[in-house]
């Protein structure tokens, strides 16, 4: 049997369908909104992604740049390092190749560095010397083997006075094994900007030079001796002849011959004395000398010269001025100074010798009214063979060894010598020495 649906049932279904349709519409609308939102979000994301991409790209570029500069930098550093190493190697090679011994110290005289020549000359290894005091590694002695005091060392002078100092006297270095050798030294202070950081000392073994000097000196000594004896014979014959009653003409000739040979003997004596002085072979004596008598004796030696040139001599010395010194050396000094005063003073000039006590020392002034020494040449006075340029050579014969010798002798007797001189006014030499 067939059954027909009732109207109410159909209405119910239609109602349900309408409700469903409304619900679906709501849902659809919601979905549409969501879809819209999603679209917006998607758009935003896309923008962000784009921005990030730009940043990323930028970062990549920066990274690339950084990498490049890093590489360049690394390359540059390598190059610089290589350059520096080359410079250093070169400096070290130069330092190591210096033929003279070299040692650098700090302000307190502690060794910072020595070179190969130092190692070879002294027998020390570089590593042994580092930080050690200079005087323990490099003891300095004089020609008699006596140690030279720390304060007397050139390096102290260089550090104290901040100037380059050169050795002028005979000094020796002792090697590690105790043997010693003569050296010529130059010490210079090391500055960084104005700051003194130490000193550098360069020294040279002068054994060869000393040997040559000694041979030369010995030759001079032998030659002088050989000349001396026959000259003594000549002088004595002539002095004997002077006592004969000869005709006046002959008497004059004999006198001249005797004076000349005496002059020659004096020159030889000086040459010998110089070679002795240069060999450090002279030891001063210490005897009592009556100053006035000594001055009179010295002046008598040159009286003929004085009279010939009509020079006026003034002697000034207190009576009984007794002095303890080396008589012969003092005579030699005054003899030279007076002889120079006579030589370099025009006829009719005045010369004086004045002696007096000055504190514990003795002061002697030898003054003349002579030609003087040109200002710019005054520094050279103590030099061997120096002769002032304002001396016309025919005026007086001279060798230029007199004052050289005087300066050396003065040092030997522990004195000092100085002078003031003005051209065409005269010269005064002042000798100060202990008694």
């Amino acid at each position: 049997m067939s059954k027909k649906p009732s109207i109410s049932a159909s209405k119910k279904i239609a109602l349900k369908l309408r409700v469903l349709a409304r619900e679906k519409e709501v849902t659809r609308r919601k979905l549409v909104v969501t879809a819209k939102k999603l679209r917006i979000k998607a758009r935003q994301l896309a923008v962000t992604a784009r921005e990030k991409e730009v940043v990323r790209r930028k970062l990549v570029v920066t990274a690339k740049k950084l990498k490049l500069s890093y590489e360049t930098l690394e390359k540059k550093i390598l190059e610089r390092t290589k350059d520096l190493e080359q410079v250093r190697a070169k400096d070290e090679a130069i330092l190591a190749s210096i033929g003279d011994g070299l040692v650098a110290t700090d302000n307190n005289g502690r060794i910072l560095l020595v070179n190969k020549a130092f190692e070879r000359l002294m027998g020390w290894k570089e590593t042994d010397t580092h930080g050690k005091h200079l005087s323990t590694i490099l003891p300095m002695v004089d020609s008699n083997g006596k140690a030279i005091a720390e304060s007397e060392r050139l390096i102290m002078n260089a550090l104290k006075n901040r100037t380059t100092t050169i050795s002028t006297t005979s000094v020796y270095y002792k090697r590690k094994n105790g043997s010693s050798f003569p050296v010529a030294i130059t010490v210079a202070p090391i500055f960084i900007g104005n700051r003194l950081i130490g000193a550098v000392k360069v020294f040279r073994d002068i054994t060869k030079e000393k040997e040559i000097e000694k041979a030369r000196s010995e030759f001079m000594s032998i030659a002088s001796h050989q000349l001396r004896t026959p000259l003594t014979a000549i002088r004595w014959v002539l002095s004997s002849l002077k006592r004969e009653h000869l005709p006046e003409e002959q008497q004059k000739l004999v006198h001249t011959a005797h004076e000349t040979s005496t002059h020659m003997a004096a020159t030889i004596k000086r040459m010998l004395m110089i070679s002795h002085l240069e060999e450090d072979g002279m030891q001063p004596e210490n005897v009592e000398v009556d100053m006035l008598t000594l001055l009179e004796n010295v002046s008598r030696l040159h009286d003929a010269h004085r009279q010939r040139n009509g020079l006026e001599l003034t002697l000034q010395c207190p009576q009984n001025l007794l002095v303890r010194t080396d008589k012969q050396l003092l005579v030699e000094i005054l003899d030279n100074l007076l002889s120079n005063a006579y030589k370099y003073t025009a006829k009719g000039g005045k010369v004086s010798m004045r002696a007096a006590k000055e504190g514990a020392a003795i002061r002697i002034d030898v003054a003349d009214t002579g030609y003087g020494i040109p200002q710019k040449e005054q520094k050279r006075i103590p030099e061997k063979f120096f002769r002032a340029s304002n001396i016309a050579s025919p005026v007086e014969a001279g060798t230029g060894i007199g004052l050289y010798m005087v300066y050396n002798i003065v040092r030997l007797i522990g004195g000092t010598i100085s002078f003031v001189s003005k051209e065409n006014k005269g010269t005064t030499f002042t000798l100060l020495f202990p008694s």
Partner: protein
Amino acid sequence: MSKHVLIAEDDSSLAEMMGKVLHKYNVRVTITYNGQEALQALEKEVPDLLLLDVLMPVLDGHCVLKTMKEKRLDCPVIVLSNLSDRMTREKCKKMDVKNYFVKNDMDDDDLWPAIEKYLQ
């Protein structure tokens, strides 16, 4: 009898020159060239004057003076030496040497009067 002068000097040229000059004083001159020869001559005959060098071979002047003292060979002595140091001078002075001349000192004018004193 003429006076007798003994010369002890190792440099022959100097010794012979002295001898020749001395002849003008009409004296006899004996020349010796070292200290030993001088002493032999002294023992044979003590002279009126001895001119003595210090630095000589075999025996030096000091030895000659010492032996003379010991053997009482007394005569005036004038030393003519190259040495000028105080030690040598004083050593000679102690031996009663009359004069000491340094060959290289320029006191030649005093030499002959000193010698003549012993020849009169």
